[in-house]
């Protein structure tokens, strides 16, 4: 019987930002349209850099559309940062234990034991494994922190054994 401990997992905001977007775009490809305003903002910024006289014009008569797009794009990381800060599961230290009984999640706010059947899917991005608990709940497991004698392979094999699909 496996009893795999992944103690003291910490997720930096930058890491969370990248993982959350990779996860969102992978599970919800329709959200790639979000990149369209990003492209237009980036192309706007590039043209301001390459043609400085355009920036002068823009400052005299601010292009409202550009400002709205830029503002709504900046709002996304701002909201994510707010969510990250008030969620100890993301910004604090969390310990995970994986066994045949399921997943145990312990941090300063919760002590939760979940059977594998409520965790139907997992996603791997580099050394991070995201376990989706349905609803808004997602767990970020750092596979580099798997305690010996086990390694990342054992975690993946355990998930496979309990029918957790790896996306």
């Amino acid at each position, binding site marked *: 019987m496996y009893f795999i401990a992944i103690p003291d997992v910490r997720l930096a905001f930058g890491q969370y930002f990248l993982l959350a977007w990779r996860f969102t775009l992978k599970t919800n490809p329709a959200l790639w349209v979000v990149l369209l305003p990003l492209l237009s903002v980036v192309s706007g910024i590039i043209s301001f850099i390459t043609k400085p006289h355009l920036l002068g014009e823009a400052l005299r008569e601010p292009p409202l559309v550009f400002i709205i797009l830029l503002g709504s794009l900046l709002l996304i990381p701002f909201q994510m940062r707010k969510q990250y800060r008030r969620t100890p599961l993301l910004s604090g230290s969390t310990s995970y234990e994986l066994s045949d009984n399921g997943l145990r999640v312990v941090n300063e706010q919760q002590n*939760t034991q979940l059977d594998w059947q409520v965790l139907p899917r997992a996603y791997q991005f580099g050394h991070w494994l995201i376990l989706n608990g349905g609803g*808004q709940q997602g767990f970020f497991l750092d596979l580099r922190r798997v305690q010996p004698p086990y390694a990342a392979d054992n975690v993946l094999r355990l998930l496979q054994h309990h029918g957790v699909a790896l996306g």
Partner: protein
Amino acid sequence: MAAQFALVADQVHAGGQGALAEAGLQVLHAPCCTRPVRSISMAWACYSALSTRRVTVSVTGLGMGCSRTPTVWARVAIFALMQPIVIADVTVSFEEFERLNKQLTSRRLLRLWALPVLSGFVSWSTLTRGGTEPLTAANAVIIALLLGFVVVMLQVLSRRAVRTAYTANRALSTPTTYILSEEGVSIFSTSVSSNVQWSAFHRAAVADGWWHLQTTTGSYLLPADRVQPPASSADVTALLRQRGLLA
């Protein structure tokens, strides 16, 4: 659920046996292990320490029990611990989920209307070159079509999102028992056992006989008609007010 756990008969306070029998628990007069438990978190620690899913609950007045599943354990805890508020066997049907979702997210949905407004403004601004040129009839039709498309897509996508959220969250259709205590909320079903402290909850709302508790990582729907006596729904409201979650 057919429950089986051992209980030391002479440690059960008056009425305890009756309450256990009422809850459908079979009382066996066979002692098992002992360990004093004074709070839910201690009971939880005791439970967690035993990966075999057996637990001992022993509090002044009530005896002890060894349970086989978290649900049974939860029921033991109900009677054993400082009279917490119990909301038993909660399931949420899709229709209820959809209705409550609509009521609870109406304020957030208002924010979503910024999207058609924004896309309307952006297209108007693009087609009239920032308002310097007059809007032709053809361009007005294009804008109207675009707005219509965005509104319809919003409706379709939000409906689909609600359905996806319901099917993804199996806990909603699984009977779940919630125990509200001084320390936090304990959540038990056949597949989940969780102990969440009050500090994790940042908002509560009331809608149509349900409480909606929002934590940083998820939300819970608790129906008022499932509050088990001797507690009442007024006790739940008072507790949520005391915690600053309800106005």
